[in-house]
Every structure is written in structure tokens, then in C-alpha cells.
């Protein structure tokens, strides 16, 4: 029996690297990525073909399909740049250049990231505080909640310049005004989710706290907050992504001097699609990393709370 098992494990050697990869996260992500890349290339050829054909016609040039495909993937200002064009651009502006340079995407990412994080921090705090107020104070719930909602329907890009001008007039410049716009955008999902989460404890659990005559504060710490954790993290993932968007939006009315938003716009002014896409992808990567970090915190916190995985 024992020798038998040993022989078996000897011959099977456990799951192959392939199956292990596929059952983890790397494998599937790679497969999906490859599928996306293929799709992207096909898309690039089709979207860029009309202008390319136009160009041939203008130059009275005859062309073959092979040549067309080759040229559509190597345009200067394509409608949809090919992945490798973006990759080359990203390589140049991320790795092949000093990160302190104005042309480095690392530098611009950092500029955006700093106001993102500041805005996210303040926004989360504000969001949670508002939710706490709304859950505990009936007057706040009834009077403030509808206006919190309305505040979010105000187009940020329209009032961003006014915010910047007003803050500038009272001497606040630089990082803070941009962070304020991030805050404005990202506190809302936190508030909405936390209001829901703080109200999610079971009725019997609330009754239990009542029998102890627990203060609101105690009920909050011991019951409401732990119950709200899943809601909080779901919203934090949304909030951090929105916060990044806010930071980028905030770069517009400050004259778009530096940051990923400035890169995006600059790309946009000059029709530099490749530059837009590489800034865009960089922003997406930054966001993904941020979301992953939040997810990691979530797992840590929930594990400490004894939640069964």
C-alpha cells in the first residue's frame, strides 16, 4: 500500500506547470490578453485601412493587401495604433528615459498618482464620515442625502475651473486643488455603499447591542463597521479608480502642466494617437495596481475578521 502510493506519486509528479498556471491567475490573464491583442491587431487594420487607402489614392500608388496591412500597422497618426506601436512608445517613455524627465511617463504617473492618493484618502474619509452621519442622524439622512446625490450630478468638468480659480484666489495651489476634484468624485461611492453597509447588520444583532444599552459609538465600532466591511471594499475599488479619473480631470483646468491628463491632452491637441494610447494604458495600469492593492487589503482585513474564504 505504502510503496504503491509512493510509486504513484513518483509517476504522476503532481499537476503539470501548464495546468497549474491555468488554474492560477496568470494563465487565464495571458490567454485573455492574447485574445485581446489579436482582436486589437485586426481592429487596427480595419480602422486604419480607409485613411491608408486614401493616402495610396492621393499618391496614385497601387497596393496589395499585404502592403496595406503592413502600412496600416505603421501609420504615424493611426485611428487605432497597433499594440506594438504603443508598446514601443511606452518603452521609450517609461524605461528608456530618466524618470525625472518631463518626457517620462513614470514622472507623469507620479504627478497624477500623488493627487489621486491624496484625493482618495480625503474622499474615503469624507465618504465614511458622511455615511456615519447619515446613518446616525435622521435629520442628516433626510436633509443631506438628496443633496449629496445631487452634488454628484453636477458635471465636474464644468465646475472644476471654478473650484481651481476660487481655491487659487485664497492661495491654495498645486496638489490640493487637483486632489479636491478627486475627492469630489470618489467620496460618493463610498458614502452610498457605507450607508448601505452600516445598515446591513441583522436586526437581531442590533437588538443585542440594544440590550447592552451600547452607545451609538459602540454599536458602530463593534457591529456596524465590521458588517459594512464587504460594502466598504467593494466601493473602495470603485473609488480609487474614480479618484484617478478625478485627478486626471483636475489636471485640465490647472493648465494641464504635468501628469497623465496633461499627456493625454497634449496627445489630443496634436492628434498623437500613439501618445494618447500609451498614456491611457499607463493610467489603466496604475489604476489596476491600485485596485489590486485595495483587493489585497480587503483579503487581509476579511481574513482577520475570520471570514471563511
Amino acid at each position, binding site marked *: 500500500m505504502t510503496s504503491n502510493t509512493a510509486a504513484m506519486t513518483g509517476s504522476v509528479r503532481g499537476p503539470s506547470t501548464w495546468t497549474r498556471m491555468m488554474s492560477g491567475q496568470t494563465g487565464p490573464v495571458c490567454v485573455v490578453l492574447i485574445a485581446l491583442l489579436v482582436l486589437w491587431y485586426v481592429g487596427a487594420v480595419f480602422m486604419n485601412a480607409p*485613411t491608408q487607402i486614401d*493616402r495610396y489614392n*492621393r499618391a496614385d500608388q497601387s497596393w496589395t493587401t499585404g502592403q496595406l496591412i503592413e502600412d496600416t500597422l505603421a501609420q*504615424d*497618426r493611426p*485611428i487605432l495604433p497597433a499594440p506594438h506601436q504603443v508598446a514601443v512608445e511606452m518603452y521609450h517613455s517609461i524605461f528608456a528615459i530618466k524618470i525625472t*524627465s*518631463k*518626457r*517620462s511617463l513614470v514622472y*507623469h504617473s507620479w504627478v497624477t498618482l500623488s493627487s489621486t492618493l491624496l484625493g482618495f484618502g480625503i474622499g474615503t474619509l469624507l465618504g465614511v464620515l458622511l455615511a456615519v452621519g447619515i446613518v446616525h442622524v435622521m435629520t442628516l439622512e433626510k436633509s443631506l442625502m438628496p443633496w449629496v446625490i445631487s452634488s454628484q450630478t453636477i458635471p465636474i*468638468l464644468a465646475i*472644476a*475651473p*471654478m473650484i481651481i*480659480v*476660487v481655491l*487659487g*484666489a485664497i492661495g491654495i495651489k498645486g496638489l490640493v486643488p487637483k486632489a479636491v476634484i478627486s475627492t469630489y468624485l470618489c467620496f460618493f461611492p463610498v458614502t452610498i455603499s457605507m450607508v448601505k453597509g452600516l445598515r446591513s447588520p441583522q436586526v437581531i444583532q442590533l437588538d443585542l447591542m440594544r440590550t447592552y444599552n451600547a452607545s451609538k459609538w459602540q454599536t458602530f465600532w463593534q457591529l456596524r463597521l465590521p458588517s459594512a466591511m464587504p460594502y466598504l471594499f467593494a466601493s473602495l475599488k470603485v473609488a480609487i479608480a474614480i479618484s484617478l479619473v478625478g485627478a486626471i480631470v483636475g489636471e*485640465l*483646468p490647472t*493648465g*494641464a*502642466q*504635468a501628469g497623465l491628463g*496633461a*499627456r493625454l*491632452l*497634449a*496627445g*489630443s*491637441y*496634436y*492628434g*498623437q494617437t500613439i*501618445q494618447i494610447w500609451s498614456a491611457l494604458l499607463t493610467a489603466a495600469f496604475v489604476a489596476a495596481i491600485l485596485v489590486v492593492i485595495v483587493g489585497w487589503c480587503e483579503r487581509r482585513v476579511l481574513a482577520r475578521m475570520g471570514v471563511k474564504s
Partner: protein
Amino acid sequence: ADEVTLQLKWVTQAQFAGYYVALDKGFYEEADLDVTINPGGPDVAPPQVIAGGGADVIIDWMPSALASREKGVPLVNIAQPFAKSGMMLTCLKETGIESPDDFPGRTLGVWFFGNEYPFLSWMSKLGIPTDGGENGVTVLKQGFNVDPLIQKQADCVSTMTYNEYWQVIDAGIPADDLKVFKYEDQGVATLEDGLYVLEDNLSDPAFVDKMSRFVAASMKGWNWAKENPEDAAMIVLDNDMTGAQTEKHQVRMMTEIAKLLGDSAVLDEAAYQRTVDSLLSGGSDPVITKEPEGAWTHAVTDKM
């Protein structure tokens, strides 16, 4: 040193080379000025910035400045380094547009955000409605670039002689395939890139003095830039925080800008009057409703 904050109308580019040169070459310092230049952008309205106290002097186009004046921001033109307009409408020849008579039924890309006034007064002068009807033109709010033309979403787009026009060229459409209408040639040119301050401040002699030193130093910068277009372009590049501008483009822009600059910063009253007349005639929805008063002064340029 006296502090001066200048709010540009657009992003850092050779369009504003004179100011950057003056800053970089120490002309402002010589004039005992401590100048901060704030770049603008698509979401920055210089009149709003100056009204909010964010700048001492701004660069704006006259139509927009006069409109703001009517809306309660008492802007006054103190100097006009740009004598000519660089705005034009660029069309693809293949669309068959030869003259303004061909416009009806076409789709035209126009810049808004206060820059649409010259276009509107041109159209009203031509008697072409802009409501998208049969005999009118369909107007699109053009983004920041010339993509609509390249992608044929529009028949014509707005361009500046010094910027967007060259982007069309760079996109692989040769100049021969383009038909351009310069506003200057159509007689609807309006004054661009002037320096404006708030009226109240002008009653303060110290402020006037400060501004005259500022304008003088700026003009020194412009003259230097005109003579050394390549170096001026490099100075602009050094000041561009986005790192997105290219040398080739900026040098070319500087060369074109030089053609628009006047000999002095003094506002030409005739040109002013032409601008006002064209704005007042702006059809059903005129930009300004009455002849502006006190919208310009020579007080600053006189003191230079």
C-alpha cells in the same frame, strides 16, 4: 521686484514664445519684475481667472474679451502684440469646396469656447445660416485637433496658420489637396492674442507703471524670438512641462507666429474698430450688443 502673473490662453507653445523668452532671458528681471506664466488649456477661461484674482494680466482674443466685458468682467486691452489673425478654415479640395459659395450643405468644424465669434460673424456676413438646415451649414464643435478633417467627419475644420494647419500637412495631406480660407483675406479678421487687465487696476499709477514695464519687456522678448526662432522654440520646449511638444513643430510655429506679429505692442485703433464692427454685425445672436466703451487704453503703451 513687482510680481506679475500672466495667464495664457492656451498651452505652452511658440504662440507665446515672446513671454517665455522674456522670462528666460531675464528681460523681466531687468525690468524689476517677478513674472509667473500660467499655461491655459481647453478648460481654462482667462477672463474667469483674472476675475477670480488668479492673474494680473491675461492673453485673450478680442471677441471673447469684449463679450466678457459685457458680462461684467471689465477687461481692458493694454497692448496688442499680434497685428494679424492666424485663423483660417481649411477644407479638403476633394470635397469640391472652392469658395464660400460652396459652404451650404457642408459640415464645418468650429472651435467654440469663445472662439466661435469670428466664424459666426463671417457666416452672418455671407448670409449662411448655421442651424444645419438645407441652405445652411452643419456646425460641429471641433475638439482640439484636426482629426475630423482627416477622418472626413467634417468637410472643413478651423486651423491656425501656425499650428493645426501643419498637423493636417503632417497627417500626409499635401498642401495642394487643401483649400484654405484665411479670415484675414475674407475681411472678417478679429484681433487675437492681446494683453488684457481689469479696468479698476488702471486707476492705480503703480499698476500702470508695472504693466508698461511688463509689456516693454515682453516686446523685447518677442523681438528676440523673431530674430532667433530656433532658440526661442527651444526655450518654449524647456518650459513645456508635459514633454509632449516637438522641436520641429515649435520652430515652424515660431516662424509662422513671426508673420502675425506687429511692429509694436500699440493697439491699432482701426483694427479695433474693424473687430468691433464685425462683432456687432453678428447676425441674430450678436456677440456684443452695443459699442463697447473704454475697452482699450494706450495708457500703458504710452508710458513705455
